[in-house]
């Protein structure tokens, strides 16, 4: 018996040793160190970074570029989920419910649409970024500006006009995300009993009421999950901005985001202390978002 328990303990230890060690070394310890480094003036070369308390944090409060980045993340946090979810819900509804044949199925070819819509999701963000950099070329050689100029319209500086560049970034993010949520919502719709749609249609419900009275309430849980996922995506965005835009977040910092500023400060300016302080602020934004979305979703659940 004792031998059995010894074997069991040995097994547990052996199986947990590698994953826990790797996880502590490469994930947990960097996170803990980040909080300490944030209170130092470490620039990577000095062997002993000196403690400067909250100086990094007071400095970042007057860092205009960082707050610009925060505002961009905040705008993305609202717009990216909103646009993506509205578009994806609309398509998921058309593909699964809104077909002509009595709510039993979606429009013809719905499977093919789903396969096509999902494809951008499997591409690397870095690849998508380079692709759209070419699509958005500012002259007649750009995929979009070419036809515009042929029609005699002024070319749009998708990435070179500071007033437009942010919207280009948002557009590409929506482009890549929609397909994933079409598939996600389709899976959610598939679990709703078909009789509900049929019963509603027999009672004379049109497409509009089918969507707002049946589909949306029953999908609400999935929509919330989507909101959290897209919110995290909006807070974490890096590669699309870093690779696609001019001067990594430009022009004139008009597209920069928190992650880009952290990376720039750490690996272009070698201000590791300051970059970690930015990271700590970003951490609290993420935690704040998580808490708020948990709160909201709990309240919704009670209402139902």
């Amino acid at each position: 018996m004792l031998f059995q328990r010894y074997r069991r303990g040995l097994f547990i230890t052996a199986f947990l040793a590698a994953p826990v060690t790797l996880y502590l070394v490469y994930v947990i310890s960097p996170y803990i160190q980040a909080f300490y480094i944030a209170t130092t003036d470490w620039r990577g070369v000095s062997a002993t970074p000196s403690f400067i308390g909250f100086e990094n944090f007071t400095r970042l409060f007057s860092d205009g570029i960082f707050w610009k980045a925060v505002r961009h993340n905040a705008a993305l946090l609202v717009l990216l989920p909103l646009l993506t979810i509205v578009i994806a819900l609309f398509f998921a509804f058309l593909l699964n419910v809104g077909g002509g044949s009595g709510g039993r199925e979606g429009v013809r070819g719905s499977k093919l649409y789903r396969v096509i819509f999902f494809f951008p999701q499997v591409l690397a963000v870095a690849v998508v970024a380079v692709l759209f950099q070419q699509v958005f070329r500012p002259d007649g050689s750009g995929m979009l500006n070419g036809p515009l100029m042929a029609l005699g319209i002024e070319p749009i500086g998708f990435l070179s006009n500071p007033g437009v560049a942010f919207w280009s970034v948002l557009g590409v993010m929506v482009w890549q995300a929609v397909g994933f949520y079409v598939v996600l919502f389709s899976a959610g719709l598939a679990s709703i009993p078909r009789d509900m749609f049929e019963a509603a249609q027999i009672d004379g419900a049109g497409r509009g009421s089918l969507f707002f009275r049946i589909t949306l309430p029953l999908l609400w849980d999935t929509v919330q999950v989507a909101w959290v996922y897209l919110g995290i995506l909006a807070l974490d965005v890096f590669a699309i901005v870093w690779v696609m835009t001019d001067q990594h977040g430009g022009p004139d910092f008009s597209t920069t985001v928190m992650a880009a500023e952290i990376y720039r400060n750490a690996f272009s300016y070698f201000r590791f202390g300051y970059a970690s302080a930015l990271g700590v602020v970003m951490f609290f934004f993420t935690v704040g978002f998580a808490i708020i979305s948990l709160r909201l979703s709990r309240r919704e659940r009670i209402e139902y």
Partner: protein
Amino acid sequence: MTTTMTSGTVATSRGEERRERRRRLGPLGVLSHMALLVWTVLVVVPILWTFLASVKSEDEIFGDAWSLPETLHWDNFARAWEQAHIGQYTLNSVIVVSFSTLGTMLVGSMAAYVLARYPFRGNRAFYLLFVSGLALPVYLALSPLFFVVQNMGNVPVLGPFIGLNTHAGLILVYIAHSMPFTVFFLAAFFRTLPTAVGEAAMVDGASHTRVFFQIMLPMARPGIVSVTIFNVLGQWNQYQLPLVLLQERDKWVLTQGIADISTAAGYDQDWSALFAALTLAILPMLVVYTIFQRQIQAGLTAGALK
């Protein structure tokens, strides 16, 4: 005759029914098809346009965006593969992702199994430690992680293999950073599996390890497949971590290589090779996706549906 008539009547009434429904659902039917087609165009055209540009000459690329190439410049692909090192970067990506996914699945399923099936003191704490990683933004830990990996380079004997600018170093980082999702998902999966088979094997004298590898792991196959797909794609598409940890060109992975050709724009920029490189990065994904689209969709959405 009677049968034909009956079926004819049924067909008419069905047709009427359908027409009636179509009337109620209105001209929106046409509009909805239009909307779907518009999005299809939005998704497909930029990709096709890239494929088209990959066989154009440099002059044609700077000319009209929608002109067709006069001759097909397949040599763009040769230059992308050789001079832009896309071949090397692809190979690097394949090496890194093969080992890191294998490692992630091995180590992650071991941890998930123990945490899901063996109650012991501290079990819950370990589980929460892993799962809390799901909420942490990787950017917070970026600078410390760089120095952790740098310090790994000073470890005796192993050091030169797992420090900065090494594939093994990146593989270990990938494995560690894939733990939260892998453990979270697989632990939930192991909990749903029946216990009887494993217990019977234990009675017959099988060891805990053998029960895991020969009974539980095969039973967990659907879950393992989903998480493997999730990890392969996630690690293949990773850009941020290699950007920080691999700074020597010959060690770069594909995403770094692609991003670099476009950001290092200069007078000697080879634009047609850039489009060829993009095509070389997209086409394999398109092929793999076309074959495994059902599994890939299931694997990627699995986490959100749990």
